[in-house]
């Protein structure tokens, strides 16, 4: 059954702050094979004008996707997560995520489409720091594939 269009525009409450740690950034950078010292060495980061080590550009997805769980698991929306694949992902940065950030995410449903039986859900996550300044916006497109005919 197609998702209810009336959910478009629905905004979910901001998440509790996620505290970005230097060691978590290091772990992520190593997991994707990054060797740029800007991710691990505060002095190298300062040489580029950053106050502390910064996170790789896609790091923030771990935080925004967890926040998107509010949408994905909304029983009223009724998304069949077992059939979901990640379709598109986009980020727009005001500044890089850095160690010491305490980030909250506000998720909203930006679009719902039904195409050939597939449900397509666009979720926007606005990420702000503790001072309320915008850090990054993440757009996540999820596609719930049509269930096979019985």
């Amino acid at each position, binding site marked *: 059954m197609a998702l209810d269009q009336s959910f478009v525009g629905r905004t979910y409450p901001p998440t509790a702050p996620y505290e970005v740690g230097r060691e978590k950034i290091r772990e992520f950078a190593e*997991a994707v094979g990054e060797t740029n010292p800007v991710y691990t060495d505060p002095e190298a980061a300062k040489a580029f004008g950053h106050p502390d080590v910064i996170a790789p550009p896609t790091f923030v997805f771990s935080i925004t996707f967890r926040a998107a769980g509010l949408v994905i698991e909304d029983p009223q929306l009724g998304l069949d997560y077992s059939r979901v694949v990640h379709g*598109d992902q986009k980020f727009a940065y005001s500044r890089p995520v850095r160690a010491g950030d305490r980030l909250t995410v506000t998720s909203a449903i930006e679009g719902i489409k039904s195409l050939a039986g597939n449900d397509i859900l666009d979720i926007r996550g606005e990420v702000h720091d503790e001072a309320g300044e915008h850090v990054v916006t993440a757009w996540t497109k999820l596609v719930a594939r049509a269930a096979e005919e019985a």
Partner: protein
Amino acid sequence: MAAKIAYDDVEVGTELPAQTFPVTRATLVRYAGASGDFNPIHWNEKFAKEVGLPDVIAHGMFTMAEAIRVVTDWTGDPGAVVEYGVRFTKPVVVPNDDQGALIEVSGKVAAKLDDNAVRVDLTATSDGQKVLGMSRAVVRLA
């Protein structure tokens, strides 16, 4: 910002140094832990096949993280990335052997924008298949 590439030194069509990124099952286990995405399609062959996949596949976000390295290694400062988006077109299939898979990424400057920014279009393939579509980054140069 301290990108090491100057805006005036690039033109539309300028190619970025291409890179090849290896990915094995061990890479995926490590990425799962670091990212918190423990979906078994990324580490459990039996589960992956049950849901209709040819084998374990890499996290799309892993591929996305590798592809942007062609841009960030070029500019020097990853903080210079203003926008980055991709479409996940085909999965990167990762066999359970010592070789794993390879993700090959190239990029070129597609447009010069205002404010010292350029748009870079990326191409990512694995096993001859295009794995990312509409893969674009906007990056601010020196």
